[in-house]
């Protein structure tokens, strides 16, 4: 199965993103111009988003063994590109005063997006590794981006080193696991793993397959920062510039989750009781550890980091449920929750990003004291995002959690649901802590907004996200229908 011309059409979004990155590189090569680079990047991502969205209705195709361009992958391509675009917009004011070359950042962002698009379309080990590593490689650069700035308040270098070393080790696990699978089945496509499960090769106990699968899952769990592979998360989040953190927390997580979903679904890995058990333990441990760790944190980024650990645990419940539930409800749950998670994480980090800049990051909880009275709209958005993370109605987070509960109930995963409830209960505490700080009376009444046209666009992003948050929270039916349709393709 080689490439043909007809394969190029489904690849359009990917090609567009690649083109954007290349174009940006050329622009940088000709003339370093910050705004122009940003505009090129944003425009390219926007076009890719639109094209991907338009293609959704008619594209469903395997392109070479590596990529599958179906509605599901296009859906996440849209989300990925849109998120990347939002992050690019948010980065623009943030990096404006960086005393360094700023253009490469957008280059890295573009390339990372390529990796992410590949990941969400991948159903093959080779494309998984390539997408993942492209994404990670760019993120190493983005995380460490302000490394040259003297006396920067944060520790981009430390973050990047920790991320690189641990991530590479995790990739090693994943690769070794893949090798074991390959040794047994002889192909590198996800679907090959079914043969492991069905025991077509004689003479092997289940042990071999389980070890192979679990090594792959461990690698993925690391990227998703599931406990006990979570420890890097807060440090990397805290050390990175906020837009990079945002990228890591949203696109990085969602891309990996789509891979995990496809892998689990295509491979029937859950046929092994051991795998189910381990995934359940990972989910429960992540929920509890993430929430408990966040409990008394004073740093917003760390709180969000820990909470993302917990949230990944929540979604994992739906993945486990998919094994027990007929129909696609749990896949829909995963999809919807990921969408919700993207919106609320983008929004939460977005607010932090708007009131911060590369030279002064405001990520301590005290920086938000009285925000409600100083910058009411920002505070409103932030409150909305936090309440959504906590799963309160009127927000998309509630619908997401509702989906998870539904999947969990159908699969009768009572223990995990109990963990979900306890975790959400603990979670309320630290989300509300932030909200409470915001409604406190401020000591100084200065508004925390950087003005100018640059941040205007960032405000626009926040507004869009907030509206999405509410619309999907109040009238989710259209999106649900869409997700129901696309989930059937998995």
């Amino acid at each position, binding site marked *: 199965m080689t490439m043909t011309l007809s394969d190029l059409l489904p690849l359009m979004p990917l090609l567009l993103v690649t083109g954007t990155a290349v174009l940006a590189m050329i622009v940088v090569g000709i003339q370093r111009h910050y705004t122009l680079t940003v505009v090129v990047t944003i425009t390219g991502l926007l076009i890719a988003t639109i094209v991907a969205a338009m293609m959704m209705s008619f594209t469903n195709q395997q392109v070479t063994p590596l990529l599958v361009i179906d509605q599901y992958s296009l859906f996440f391509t849209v989300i990925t590109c849109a998120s990347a675009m939002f992050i690019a917009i948010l980065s623009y004011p943030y990096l404006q005063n960086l005393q360094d070359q700023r253009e490469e950042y957008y280059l890295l962002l573009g390339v990372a997006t390529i990796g992410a698009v590949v990941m969400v379309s991948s159903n093959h080990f080779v494309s998984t590794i390539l997408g993942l590593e492209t994404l990670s490689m760019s993120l190493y650069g983005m995380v460490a981006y302000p490394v040259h700035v003297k006396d920067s308040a944060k520790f981009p270098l430390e973050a990047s*080193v*920790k991320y690189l*070393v*641990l991530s590479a*080790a*995790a990739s090693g*696990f994943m690769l070794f696991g893949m090798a074991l699978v390959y040794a047994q089945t002889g192909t590198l496509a996800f679907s090959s793993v079914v043969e492991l499960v069905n025991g077509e090769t004689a003479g092997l106990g289940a*042990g071999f397959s*389980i*070890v192979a*699968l*679990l*090594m792959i*899952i*461990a690698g993925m*769990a*690391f990227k998703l920062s599931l*406990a*006990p*592979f979570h*420890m*890097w998360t*807060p*440090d990397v989040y805290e050390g990175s510039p906020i837009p990079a953190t945002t990228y890591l927390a949203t696109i990085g997580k969602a891309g990996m989750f789509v891979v995990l979903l496809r892998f689990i679904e295509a491979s029937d890995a859950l046929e*092994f*009781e*051991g*795998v189910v*058990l*381990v995934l359940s*333990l*990972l989910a429960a441990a992540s929920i509890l*550890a993430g929430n*408990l*760790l966040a*409990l*008394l944190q004073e740093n917003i980024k760390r709180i969000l980091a820990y909470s993302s650990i917990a949230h990944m645990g929540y979604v994992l419940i739906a993945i486990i449920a998919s094994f027990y539930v007929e129909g696609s409800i749990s896949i829909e749950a995963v999809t919807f929750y990921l969408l919700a998670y993207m919106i609320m994480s983008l929004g939460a980090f977005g607010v932090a990003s708007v009131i911060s800049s590369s030279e002064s990051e405001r990520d301590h909880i005290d920086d938000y004291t009285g925000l409600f009275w100083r910058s009411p709209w920002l505070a409103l958005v932030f409150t909305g995002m936090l309440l959504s993370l906590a799963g309160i109605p009127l927000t998309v987070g509630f619908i997401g959690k509702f989906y998870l509960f539904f999947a969990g109930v159908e699969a009768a995963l009572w223990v995990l649901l109990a963990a979900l409830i306890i975790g959400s209960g*603990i979670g309320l505490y630290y989300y509300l802590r932030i909200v409470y700080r915001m409604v406190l009376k401020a000591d100084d009444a200065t508004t925390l907004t950087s003005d100018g046209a640059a941040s205007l666009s960032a405000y626009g992003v926040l507004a869009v996200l907030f509206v999405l948050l509410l619309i999907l929270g109040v009238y989710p039916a259209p999106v649900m229908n869409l997700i129901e349709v696309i989930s059937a393709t998995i």
Partner: protein
Amino acid sequence: MLDLIWLLPTFPLLGFLSLVLTSGRLPKPIVAAIGAGSVGLSFALAAMIAMTFLGSGEDYYIVETFTWMSVGSFTPGFSFYLDGLSLVMMLVITGVGFLIHVYATGYMDEDPGYSRFFSYMNLFVAAMLMLVLGDNLVLLYLGWEGVGLCSYLLIGFWYTKPENGYAARKAFVVTRVGDTSMAIGLFLLFAHFGTLNIQDLMHAAEIEWATGTNLPAIAALLLLGGAVGKSAQLPLQTWLPDAMAGPTPISALIHAATMVTAGVYLIARTHVLFELAPDVQILVAWIGLITLLMAGFTAMTQTDIKRILAFSTVSQIGYMFLGLGVGAWSASIFHLMTHAFFKALLFLGSGSVILAMHHEQDIFKMGALRKVLPISFASFMIGSLALTAFPFTSGFFSKDEILLAAIELEGVGFWLWLGGVVGAFFTGIYTFRLMFVVFFGENRGHHCEGEYGGWNMSVPLMILMVLSLVGGFIHIPVEAVFSHGEAHEEHHASLLIEGIMIAVPLIGIGIAYLFYGSKTLSVENLMASSLAKNLHKFWNSGWGMDWLYDRLFVFPFMWLARINAKDIVDQFYGLVVEINRAAHQMIVRSQTGYLRWYALSVATGLVLIITLGVLL
């Protein structure tokens, strides 16, 4: 005419509302006019109704106004039931009530809470009328609680003194214990008969319940609980003496003439039930007897003029209970009425004394007042004679009937009678102890300027004097009410017994004279022994009942409340929070910041999940 019966409670209620809504802005004469006038109107109406009713020859008359609530079969209405019993009660309440109101217009003249006082009083009369006129137990309960509330408000009328507030709360809470028991009784009755209409209930009970079975006994016991609370009988008698903290007209109206006898009314009203439960009925008699004796002992040791009268009230209600217990229903009601006359007289008289003595209530700080306060003396004299059942005073006839009914009872009747006679002996002693100490002897230093107040205080006293003297000749028309219940209408007592009953109180008076009048005998000698001192102390404290209840109920409750003020359940959740915090502190230490540690954790995680995955 009879259909206007609903106006009876309405007049005082309107008085209450107009006084409350103007809240003290009216001038005193108008307040007095509204306060006393509304009750006067009621009395006039009551009198006319009484005449009409007696003239009509009917046994009873029902006036229905509107349904209070209708929930399934539970449909109590604001309906009034008039028969001989409620007629007597209605007249006593409005009549004596009106006199006391008039008296109070003078008595409270200088009090800043004049209007407040009369509003409470009016509310009380309204509630009391509800109590006795209601045709169902729920309406009765409405009045029952209403009078309790007014009692509370009026005992604590002078609110700046904390002990008055304490007394008021004590009165309310102790009676509420009884009320609760009564409420449970109502639930029980409703659960069995599906109605709380008194007449329907009584008919149903007679038909469905056999005499001496458990259910009527329990129901009667529960109602008895309410009755002993309201009427200050054992074991809930402790509140009444403290209730004297209120203004004296209150003591006269509420704590002597009307409210405290509500228990007697309740038992009389539901006598069918008690007849179905003979054990409980005899228990009523014993309660009455023991109470009257205990109160008699205590009254002899008191020095506060109002407390002496209070214990005597307890004691006299004991007689009424005794009468109820032996089935002398109409005798008890008769005694209720005469007691209302003479006890109101005594209290109002003591009120005059107290005012004249500038709010001094210790009898040993008074003396030789008969010259200075002739009207008070006269009222006390007549009241005391009636109280001690001096022949041909009102108290004589009523008490006589009760005791005669007691002795005719088979079995324990003689002992009940004997106890009653002994009680009468004590009554003589403590009543005339009071008389001799206060009105005879020498003045003990306190200056007294003579009678206080004008006609509005003296006229009611005089009317009550007359009633106390001749009240015994009034015939109460209750035969129809108790027609089937009363075994003995005519008493045929031997001369010996009659003689004893006449002589014993006189002996008591004589002894009082020897100790306090002529000083022939010395109280000091009597008090010399330590046994006597301790007994005196014991009796003086009301047989230690307060002490006992403090330790049995009040202190444990306060202790429980105090140790658990923070709510132990809440502390449990505090513990949950602490556990979470501790877990956070513990787990957050794993985030050391060291890369190698993180790497080790990743490796450990891998090993862990592989091991688990393979093992399971």
